[in-house]
């Protein structure tokens, strides 16, 4: 393991993150209480972050260029753990956050991993600069900090590729351009396009510039932090809800399909099996939810039932975690239906989290295939998505992932139960963090928050968030003794 090079890269990433805090500085000069404290908090955090990063950089200044997959895995996993540590500093230094540093760390990790679980009871009293940074962490984490880092720092060669492959979610980890740097920069450019577009549409709907930016950041990342305690219902505007639904839907699609579409080839997008399945899952979810809301009389008018079903279904399945209704007070079918949706997530290569549509498709198809083989063992079937055969290694990777994911879910649920939480809270908090969704049910429902959980639970959930964001393997490897051995 080339520790020096890992340290150097980590140092660079930390400095990069610390400097990016500058985006929140203009909001410190707003006429509101706490501006001065926030300015001080941000400047101190930047200083600490740069010092930490610089220290790591110096530690690794004489690093050799040997960089393999193993180093890539370690770098990315550590990077995410450290970034949240630095990103939490402004919250901590400002003094506006409840609790101690761990609460701030939980909030920052929830930001970068685009989870959207919060420890804040009331959001409006928090100064704008802190809220802006909180939303911005999601925006950075959505497309990927490492991916942004790669597209900005030209000095990386094959290292960039290893880093990219660890951070980008999904199965097909090949870039779309000859150089991984170009792939990264295309992805970010598409992301920026979406950003500008959504800010514009939200401004058009009457949102303030601050709200438009903050919500755009957290929509596109499928994050879910809002600047209102009441989340999107704080706007009380059908137009804004629809714009946000549209963008939540859009960023749940594989970005490389957009890259192709931008290059003038729209066919791969509309023919893509995963995309079509994603669309049909969403439609199905909305319809089921709508019917259940009507049958159990949660809403009297079919229109408001549809409006709430649509928003909640899209928000939960894309792992965003906004709310326009307190869905924890819906009927039990709807509640657990949403809990089920949390396991699905967006497409591979999107900013959404959780298991992802492609893996679900492969699992279901494999199960179907085994069923056919069961009564006629001599039959030879090749697993295909559309017309593309799926390789055996891919299938076993998918199964490995699902086993680890569900395993993590079960173990963590038991751990939370052992900490004295009720079953529904334990289960929903686990999947809401592991799947990077945010709100769960019962005590962590959309109308409440995570602050009241015991500290060990918050630490465990922070860990689940990063595990979910990096798709389990890289984070678990850190605990494998063989991974560190020379």
């Amino acid at each position: 393991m080339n520790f020096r090079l890992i340290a150097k890269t980590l140092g660079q990433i930390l400095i990069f993150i610390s400097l990016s805090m500058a985006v929140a500085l203009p909001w410190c000069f707003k006429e509101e209480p706490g501006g001065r404290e926030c300015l001080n908090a941000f400047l101190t955090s930047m200083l600490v972050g740069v010092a930490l990063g610089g220290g790591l950089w110096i530690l690794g200044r004489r690093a050799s260029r040997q960089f393999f997959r193993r180093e890539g895995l370690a770098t990315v996993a550590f990077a995410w753990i450290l970034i949240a540590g630095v990103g939490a500093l402004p919250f901590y230094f400002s003094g506006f956050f409840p609790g101690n540093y761990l609460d701030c760390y939980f909030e920052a990790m929830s930001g970068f991993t685009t989870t959207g679980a919060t420890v804040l009871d009331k959001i409006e009293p928090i100064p704008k600069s802190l809220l802006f940074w909180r939303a911005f962490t999601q925006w950075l984490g959505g497309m990927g900090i490492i991916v942004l880092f790669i597209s900005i720092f030209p000095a990386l060669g094959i290292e960039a590729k290893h880093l990219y492959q660890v951070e980008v979610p999904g199965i097909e980890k090949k870039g779309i351009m000859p150089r991984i740097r170009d792939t990264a920069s295309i992805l970010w450019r598409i992301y920026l396009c979406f950003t500008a577009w959504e800010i514009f549409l939200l401004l058009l709907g009457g949102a303030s510039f601050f709200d438009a930016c903050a919500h755009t950041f957290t929509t596109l990342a499928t994050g879910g932090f809002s600047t209102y305690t009441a989340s999107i219902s704080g706007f009380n505007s059908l137009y804004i809800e629809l714009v946000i639904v549209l963008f939540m839907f859009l960023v749940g699609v594989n970005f490389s399909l957009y890259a192709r579409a931008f290059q003038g080839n729209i066919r791969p997008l509309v023919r893509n099996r995963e995309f079509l399945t994603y669309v049909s899952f969403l439609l199905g979810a909305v319809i089921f939810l709508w019917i259940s809301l009507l049958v159990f009389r949660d809403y009297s008018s079919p229109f408001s039932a549809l409006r709430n079903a649509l928003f909640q279904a899209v928000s939960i399945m894309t792992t965003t975690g906004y709310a326009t209704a307190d869905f924890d007070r819906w009927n039990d079918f709807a509640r657990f239906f949403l809990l089920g949706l949390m396991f699905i997530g967006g497409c591979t290569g999107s900013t959404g989290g959780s298991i992802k549509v492609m893996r679900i498709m492969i699992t279901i198809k494999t199960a179907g295939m085994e069923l056919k083989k069961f009564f006629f063992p001599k039959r030879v079937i090749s697993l295909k998505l559309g017309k593309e055969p799926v390789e055996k290694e891919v299938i076993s990777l998918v199964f490995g992932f699902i086993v680890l994911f569900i395993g993590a879910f079960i173990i963590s649920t038991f751990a939370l139960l052992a900490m004295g939480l009720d079953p529904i809270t334990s289960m929903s908090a686990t999947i809401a963090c592991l799947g990077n969704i945010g709100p769960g049910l019962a005590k962590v429902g959309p109308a409440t928050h995570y602050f009241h959980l015991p500290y060990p639970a918050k630490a465990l959930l922070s860990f689940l968030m990063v595990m979910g964001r990096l798709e389990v393997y890289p984070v678990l490897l850190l605990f494998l003794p063989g991974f560190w051995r020379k």
Partner: protein
Amino acid sequence: MKILIIGGGEVGFHLAKILTRAGHRITIIDNSPERISELESRLDVYTLLGNGCEAGVLEQAGVFSADVVLGVTSNDEVNLLAGYFAKEMGAKRIIVRVRDISRYQYHRSFYQRVLRYDYMLSPRELTAQVIIEAVLGHRASVVEDFAEGKIQLRQFKIPARLPWEGKTLSQANLPKDCLIVALIKNQPKREIIIPDGSTLIKEGDEVLVLGSPSRVKEIEKTFGKSIERARKVILVGGGGIGLTIAQKSEATEIDLKLIEENKDRADELAEILDQTQIINGNGTDPMLLEELGIKSTDLFISACGKDEKNLLGCQLAKKLGAKKVIALVENPEYVELYQSLAIDLAVCPRRLLAEKIIGFINTGVVGSIAVIEEGKAEVIEMKAEPESPITRAPLSQVGFPRGAIIGVIVRDGQVIIPAGKDRVQPGDICIIFSFLKSLPQVQKLFSPPDKSK
């Protein structure tokens, strides 16, 4: 630059590795899934599984916008056909690798016209060239052929007690039809200059001479008797490279003994070669080597297909008293290692090929090039395109950059040493010495006017 490499074997891999470091955008096509995943995990490139001869695969690889396409699979036909398709589909420049260039030699212009490649290279040929130069032991440390061998570039060191010593260039009586294009001063510090008539030549300086091979040879004679030649050579391995070396040395006064293990191959070699002594035996057999007079051998070359055998043979020969040993290396990664194992020269065909191709890509010059002083300057072969700026006025008026000089013009097979009043005509091939910074200007002068503007 966008570069498409067809064939992800060792040559393709080595090329991609160097080219990605230089910041080029690389796509590699290979037909083996294992190789693809290997390349994918070790290089920052885009990979594509498929046959490089299929139009669909080429299209997917974005061949229409490729600046350079390199056909470097182990199959000549695949390379040539893929190169042809690539050109048809809009790729700018095509370089193909072939196993044995002599198959194409006599109809070279025919193949080039029909198959539309820009440059054909053979690792075997390149290797044989490098080895034969070592065998001939020219004092010139650089020997390059230009314009299909009509022009030669040599680098000489000015020895002591030479008639030229202390004279200016115009006073020195140079043979006609050749030109000193550059002077490398060793005192007080090493620097390259483009000389004029008043430049002084001193002992220890080095000169780059350009001219027809016979004239250059005359100059070589002027430099005198001190030329050392490796007269007694033992060559192990009668494969393609061994045979090419032997053929090239047939015309010289070298006493070459070729050891070939396989009886049938040895018979075959004996049929092809006249001057060379063919010995059927094992190149790593100490008794045999002693019997062949290894003690008085100037040069021992091991060029069989196995790295271990070459290495072992060379070390054995060195121990038994050979003055200099040259080993062939298959794996490009081992070249540096060999130098620390007392091998005087390690020659790697794939690496040579890669170096040649990279020189070609970096300069954007059609025709062979020689790199002088680790890339500070280059000697290039340029063809004057119709309507290019260089053809519009006499040389003294076209604004030729100061850091470059036209050494020779080849027009219809005639060699011309140009003066300021001469005019370059479309279709002329010019051999130019240029410093790196002046290269873009030179290229501009020779390219046709940009119609898009």
